[in-house]
């Protein structure tokens, strides 16, 4: 899965096209490739509960019983169900900001 600036925790989203990189302080484009110092930003597409569907742009959230639809780019920094999916099969729990669902 190709990473972009908007997949990095240091990317401060200004608008739909660009943001600020906290490391360099400069304005960067959302779709440009990030540097090696990328810090992982929780998003649905990286969550263990995310199941892609036949439609590439939408998916399913298996964290809740009724399996609501979701979309891959949805930021999950405040989602307490988020569990990062690891490529080696082991899932690692990144504590998100919020205890939203508690």
């Amino acid at each position, binding site marked *: 899965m190709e990473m972009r600036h908007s997949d990095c925790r240091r990317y401060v989203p200004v*608008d*739909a096209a660009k943001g600020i990189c906290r490391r360099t*302080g400069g304005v960067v484009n959302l*779709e440009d490739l990030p540097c090696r110092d990328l810090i992982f930003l929780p998003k649905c597409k990286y969550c263990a509960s995310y199941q892609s569907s036949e439609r590439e742009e939408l998916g399913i959230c298996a964290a*809740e019983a009724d399996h609501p639809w*979701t979309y891959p780019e949805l930021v999950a920094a*405040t989602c307490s169900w988020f569990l990062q999916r690891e490529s080696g099969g082991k899932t690692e729990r990144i504590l998100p900001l*919020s205890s*939203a669902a508690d």
Partner: protein
Amino acid sequence: LRDLYFQTLSSVSLEFPYWYTRRWQQLEGEVPVVRRAEALKMAFSHLTPTIYPGERLVGGKTIYYRGSFPMPWLSEGYFMAVQDQLYQAALEKGSAAADQVTKWGSGGGNVTENFGPVVSIAGKFGIPRQEVPALLELARAWVGKSVDDVGHKYEQMVPGYPLKENLMRSVICMFDSGYTLPQGREVTNYYYPLQHGLEGVKEIARTHMAEVAGEAGGDGLRGMDRLYFYQASILVLEGIQSWINNYSKEARRLEQESEELLLRNEYGELADSLEWIASRQPRTFREALQLVFLLHTAVLNEDCISGLSPGRVGQILWPWFEQDREAGRLGEMEALELLELYRVKMTCYDCFAAMGVVGGVLSGNTFNHLCLGGLAKDGSSATNPLEMLILEAGMTCATPQPTLGLLYHERLPEDLLLQAIECNKTGTGYPAWLNDEVARTFLLSQYGPEGMDVEEARAWSVGGCLETSPGSWHELTLGGRRYWIPGGSGQPTSVGVHFLSLPKILECVLFNGRDMRRDVQIFPPQDRPLATFEELWETFCSYFEMAVEVLCRANNVQHDIWRKQNMPVLHSLLKPDCLETGYHIGNLGYRYNATYNVESCGTANLVNALSALKASVYQDKSHSLEDVRQAILANFGFQTAEEVGSYSLSAQVLRPGGEVWEEIHHDLLTAPKYGNDDPRADTLLAQWEQYFSTVARRFQSLYGFPLYPCQISVSTHGPMGAVTLAGPDGRLAGTTFADGSMSAYPGTDRNGPYALFASATCWDHSRSQNSQMNLKIHPSAARGAQGARKLLELTRAYLRQGAFHIQYNIVDSKVLKDAQAHPENYRTLMVRVAGFTQYWVEIGKAIQDEVIARTEYESV
């Protein structure tokens, strides 16, 4: 941070609507107000907090700097109508936009076309390409269930409904009321959280909940609803607390991640204050300002609102400012910086509504009106040193929001008045000057039946751009001292019957009820010869009342569905007396509910047209009515504004052979016109105002209260002019009407400002919610101390004659013409359009042309 705003595009985030819809769909069968609160709580607690480098005041509607989002539960029709176009745009990477580039201001932060990773929505908002499918999925979830769809089903049962559809298509009325911007043009209220802290407010709700659970309280209709409202209040407050806590956690994360000591301290300070105000009464001016900004943002996220005004912030936050200053906790420069940051954050607000609403009438503005001056509870002058700083921040950090208004009365100190004039002279267009006494007289007549007394009338402030809105006093205790602070306590205004185009209704009178532009019969044919001026006037009145009747009833249905499905919970509990009574806004929980009104547009053009017809056709009989009709259809021999590509009178081009209409055009143009202290025209204004203020009150809102006149134009005078043929006043087809309601039509006020003032005050302004006078003054006329003094005397002269409002564009037309030709050089230029200040580059061309064409007074 203001420069960052200039680089920022207006952007759509789906976080809030996604989580709201997801939770709503899980709660089928739940009590509506609780189901709504659960969905709001889930949405608030899942918003991603973004803290921008250098910010000391944080928070926003979305993850973006200038972000907003659609509320498909209010209306999803637009997305369904353009879904194929949006899908296509999402697939085509970097292709040009749909064929018609919007008529939006083509510059500034508006995303008028698709580009690279961004798709343009409604010609204004950008959304990342990959999120378009999710946007359409959200819209589909609400088809047949939104307030728009359900309201539409029942509004069609109103007798004469086809007339309403025609009024909208002919732009005789501009936009529906119940689902577009159902709240706003009102003053919010921060008192309860400022006094008790959010945890304290929850405690009040819990206490009341126990008292009312299972009790009808003598009200068999609403009594039992109180339990559910209190439960809903607790849920929403939990969501807001979670949202604020997410910001404090993000600040804490940045504190730990920052290497620089200064940054660590700033983020640490931020985290501490956010953790505190997430539950308790603010301790400092900075914490109080942060809390009121977050509450304001939260209310804007709960519903589709334009014109949510903070009220008299300088008097509301005075307790913290005074005590901080005395304790040496707050320097004047730090306070000024915080007020500047507050201006930038408020300017970052965007209101997502359909283009016809945001583009057509609002010019993208959000109308957060902060007022200064006015009277205290005991009738003394209410101003204080913090208000001087607020004016200063309006100059050192000029931005469109919040716009400023000065509630003028004779006991305001001279230094505040001269500071306000200096602010006007910077060309920002604010503060507007408002007559405190005229407003209070109006308020007492309109809200007296709901219990308003003289003392309470003093607590008023301005809703959106110019809507006089009722307020109330609350006693706030801080540091062992007591203060009476004002806050809003009325329902939204500028709802009920939106903008009615008076010149277009007169056009229908001349053509027997027909819209000749669309060639459609709008009103039933009267088949009257209009042989006398009285007959012409009677026909106009009958058509006007038909329009108000059907629009009022249809919008009452829409608002009724809105209050049943989409009632505000947060904005109910914030305003008196919902928290005490347990009744939300839809159950008449607010203290004042008689707030719905009838809006007009094109007053000056109507008066000038009636005056020209009276003189030329009915008195000296130099032309017949049929002559006038033919001249109108021929546009007096001129090309149309569309053909010329300019909407202002001065730029129009005569067709070859158009000279045949020159004589009739000359006679109609030179007939007596409004704005020259000429009774032949001014008595017609008085006749219209007397009629309007009487007939509006014959109609009733869904809450059972009488409507009343609201006389502003916002920017409807552009699009409404664009669909109106030439007029008997000599105005040409497609050109923009006069703005506001008391502003003269450009070029017709020839006897100077004092003659214009005499014309404008020939009627009682307290019979209407407002009146609007925009004056354009050349900078040279107000130069230096003497110029400032003259401008102050000019302002006083008008207000002392009983006028309600005046505001100034102090700008050189040559600069505006250059800015129209080279927008790239004028990104920060602002002008006063109607009751609001907007960036020049973000205004549509029709309004730009009209501001340029306004009469420019070289001396005052």
